[in-house]
């Protein structure tokens, strides 16, 4: 069966071509804000981000950046556009945005929404619901807002003032926060009679490791996230000289770098797996290594060594990894156990959810691993007025995923409070319009910039290690930001093909620098992909197929490596190709029934 012509009226087709936006859980319109940054319109860039991901300043420093590995530039030349750090530029150089933040209506709609936890997901739900007139109250265990953004992310990566600014933007919209309010019985809490309850309590329980010596050495063994929180709240200000950090995730990287700043002289990270399998983001590992912190791979912890009733070291078994059928096995090498001296151990080996405070007879169903059953689309639990989001819903993820959950939860809460069907959800905002301004003029900079990715300047290492509050990354200045922004390929400016204008002159085929465009006989997808000038082997990327042309062929464009340079449209004599700017903004609660 030959392929049907691509339906470009389906917004998801072109959305998928914008790889960064597609990969972002909150679908932030990345190329659009990068163009704003290039134009020096930092405030506009910030507000576009704020609309979509709520915490541009925080995320510009701490995001897990699923957009970057997805960036088309990786496939074209290796290094993605520094999307995350450009976001930070918008936050760093913006003007006062307080007047641009929407104000809630003078009169509320009388509906009371409770938010458990004042971390990113609850704050984002409040951000979406407050302008609609909802009365939102957050109940927070700690004396300050921010959740894990404050307790788990060290100040040298995220300064408190950046976090405070973005939390306060939402609180100033009219969010009430009950600090130091830990909910110990959800049954009692439900009696407060809210119209809806949102649970955004995160995954607050660090995993423990029960190996010999654990109990005896407990004074010097610390759970990673608890340690980081204690440092953030200044309950802890020093650590032993020799520190072992267990784990290979981002928390382990934060723990080791914090330990160095608290006086650790010999800090080492010990990971069970090979380094390549570490869960930490590459750039977090790089930062730790730049601070001369060694990472020991293939070390499985076996025992805490106690001397005179006190922790004095650890024993590790050395292993090698074997892979079969996509599964990894760690096989002991048989070498003698490795003994490492230490004064303190930080355990950063994972996090769990904790719902001891939630009685099991409230109508909230719990499934595998004692996790609540939550609808993937609506974020609703089996108790209709209770919604979950962030790490509390399906376990540890990241801030940007929490924000995406929040938008969906806010839509659901709004529909729920209005007695509407939660499955009839608002549509995304989509525009597609020509970017043609003149004969060879487009409303975007279509030239391909060959410059390499710029690395972000760092604060002096010695100074950084003395002061745990000193931000390590300094961010781009405006010139660097412009240069980095110019690397963006503008993948949201789409190549739109109109077959009834095409005279099949081959001009587009000849000029395309990436050999994306083909005129071939239609066929079934795999054969069609194989028949192209350069076969379209990346199945993650779609091929754009036209209707039948006069020579009985079809136009097939492999979207994979298109530079969006517009040369096809410039060389087309009949305007069959046009570069059209595609804008996509995911639906939020303001687009729903109250909006």
């Amino acid at each position, binding site marked *: 069966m030959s392929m049907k012509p691509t339906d470009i009226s389906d917004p998801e087709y072109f959305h998928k071509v914008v790889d960064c936006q597609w990969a972002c859980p909150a679908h932030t319109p990345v190329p659009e804000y990068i163009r704003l940054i290039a134009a020096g319109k930092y405030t506009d860039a910030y507000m576009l981000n704020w609309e979509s991901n709520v915490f541009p300043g925080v995320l510009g420093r701490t995001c897990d950046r699923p957009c970057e590995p997805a960036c088309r530039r990786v496939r074209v030349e290796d290094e993605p556009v520094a999307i995350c750090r450009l976001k930070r530029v918008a936050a760093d150089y913006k003007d006062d945005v307080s007047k641009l933040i929407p104000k809630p209506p003078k009169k509320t709609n009388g509906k009371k929404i409770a938010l458990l936890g004042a971390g990113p997901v609850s704050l984002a739900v409040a951000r979406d619901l407050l302008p609609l007139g909802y009365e939102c109250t957050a109940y927070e265990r700690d004396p300050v807002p921010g959740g894990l953004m404050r307790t788990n992310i060290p100040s040298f990566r995220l300064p408190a003032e950046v976090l405070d600014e973005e939390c306060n933007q939402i609180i100033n919209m009219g969010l009430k926060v009950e600090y130091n309010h830990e909910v110990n019985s959800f049954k009692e809490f439900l009696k407060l009679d809210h119209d809806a309850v949102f649970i955004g309590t995160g995954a607050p329980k660090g995993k423990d490791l029960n190996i010999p010596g654990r109990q005896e050495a407990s004074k010097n063994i610390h759970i990673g996230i608890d340690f980081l929180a204690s440092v953030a709240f200044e309950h802890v200000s020093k650590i032993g000289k020799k520190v072992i950090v267990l784990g290979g995730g981002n928390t382990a990287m934060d723990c080791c770098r914090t330990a160095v700043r608290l006086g650790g002289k010999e800090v080492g990270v010990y990971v069970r797996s090979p380094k390549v399998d570490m869960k930490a983001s590459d750039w977090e590992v790089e930062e730790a290594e730049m601070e001369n912190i060694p990472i020991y791979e293939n070390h499985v912890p076996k025992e805490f060594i106690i001397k005179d009733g006190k922790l004095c070291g650890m024993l590790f078994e050395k292993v090698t990894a074997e892979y079969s059928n996509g599964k990894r096995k760690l096989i002991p090498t048989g070498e003698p156990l490795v003994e490492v001296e230490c004064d303190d151990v930080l355990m950063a080996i994972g996090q769990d959810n904790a719902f001891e405070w939630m009685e099991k007879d409230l109508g909230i169903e719990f499934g595998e691993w004692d996790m609540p059953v939550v609808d993937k689309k609506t974020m609703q639990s089996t108790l209709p007025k209770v919604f979950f989001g962030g790490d509390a819903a399906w376990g540890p993820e990241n801030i940007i995923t929490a924000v995406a959950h929040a938008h969906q939860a806010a839509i659901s809460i709004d529909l729920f409070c209005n007695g509407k069907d939660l499955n009839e959800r608002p549509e995304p905002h989509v525009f597609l319009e020509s970017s043609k301004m003149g004969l060879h003029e487009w409303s975007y900079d279509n030239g391909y910039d*060959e410059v390499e990715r710029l690395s972000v300047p760092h604060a002096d290492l010695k100074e950084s290690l003395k002061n745990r509050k000193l931000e390590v990354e300094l961010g781009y200045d405006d010139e660097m930001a412009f240069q980095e922004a110019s690397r963006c390929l503008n993948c949201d400016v789409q190549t739109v093909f109109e077959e009834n204008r095409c005279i*099949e002159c081959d*001009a587009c085929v000849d000029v395309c620098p990436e050999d994306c465009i083909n005129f071939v006989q239609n066929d079934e997808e795999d054969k069609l992909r194989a028949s192209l000038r350069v076969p379209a082997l990346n199945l993650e990327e779609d091929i754009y197929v036209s209707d039948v042309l006069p020579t009985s062929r079809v136009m097939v464009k492999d979207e994979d490596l298109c530079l969006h340079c517009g040369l096809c449209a*410039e060389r087309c004599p009949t305007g069959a190709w046009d570069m059209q700017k595609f804008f996509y903004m995911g639906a939020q609660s303001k687009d729903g029934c109250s909006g």
Partner: protein
Amino acid sequence: MSYIKKPSAKHPRLPKNRLGLTRRDYEGALSTLCAGCGHDSVSSAIIEACFNLSIPAHKLAKLSGIGCSSKTPTYFLNKSHGFNSVHGRMPSVATGANLANRDLFYLGVSGDGDTASIGLGQFCHIIRRRLNMLYVVDNNGTYGLTKGQFSATNDKESKSKKGEDNLFESIDLAALAIQLGAGFVARSFSGDKEQLVPLMTAALKYKGFSFIDVISPCVTFNNHIQSTKSYQYFREHNEALGFLDVIPDKEEIKIQYDEGTTTEVEIHDGSKMILRKLDNNHNPYDKSNALSVLNGHQSDGSVVTGLIYLDKNEMDLHDTINTNHKPLNILSEKELCPGSSGLDFVNKNFS
């Protein structure tokens, strides 16, 4: 015409030839011809053919005269030798170059004005001399650079864009080339690379004078409904005589051919040309048959394409006038200086 530089980025999986080059390495500057000009596709076919043959850039000289077509050598093989000569005088320059250095590939690109009007005399004589080169005409039937007057190859029944009649008979360059002794004569279409690229590949390999008349529509002045050189007219009236495959020396023939439909010709360097005939009345090795096929189709308005005539007896100017086998620039003093005995011999003739 475009204002941005063609991006240097290229597909990481582009095929490479024997020299380890991709077809992008055979490109030139970005074209400044009108968007959609057939000539750009001809340039692209040249790139493809040179890539297929793994021609090192320094082993090819591109020559042209004046006109839209003659601008195109700027748009391919930017590392090769080039000479953009006087209007209609490309054959003289090509002849001089070829006599001085017989070891290069010579590729002349001309147009219907440059060849069939001002350069017709030069064209006739370079054919007679069988200079070893590929002579390509980007034939669009119009003088594009001077805003669309009829050229000498415009068919009599083909009107101008504004509807004026063409009063004169057209010159069939392919027929002329066959009559005057060209060894390899073909016609093709800029918009059909499947046919054009193998023809160019074979023509570059052929020793002797190869001529390809490429119908290459002028989108600006001669692509209208009353033109016989438009994309649409060509596609409706194309009469392909056959397809050509070129199998380089020592390579195995991988394609399965139906028996009796193909003929095979070995050329001087050991490569094979395999011709799949579509027209049973056509015999490409017979001059008068080739000419009558051309004439027959001309009268019914169809355009014959493919390899029209091939002289299996490859011969070029150097063979005819028995020149030295080495290019002049590598001849040493030993070969150039006749020595005193030689000089004595010459002097004796004057005594």
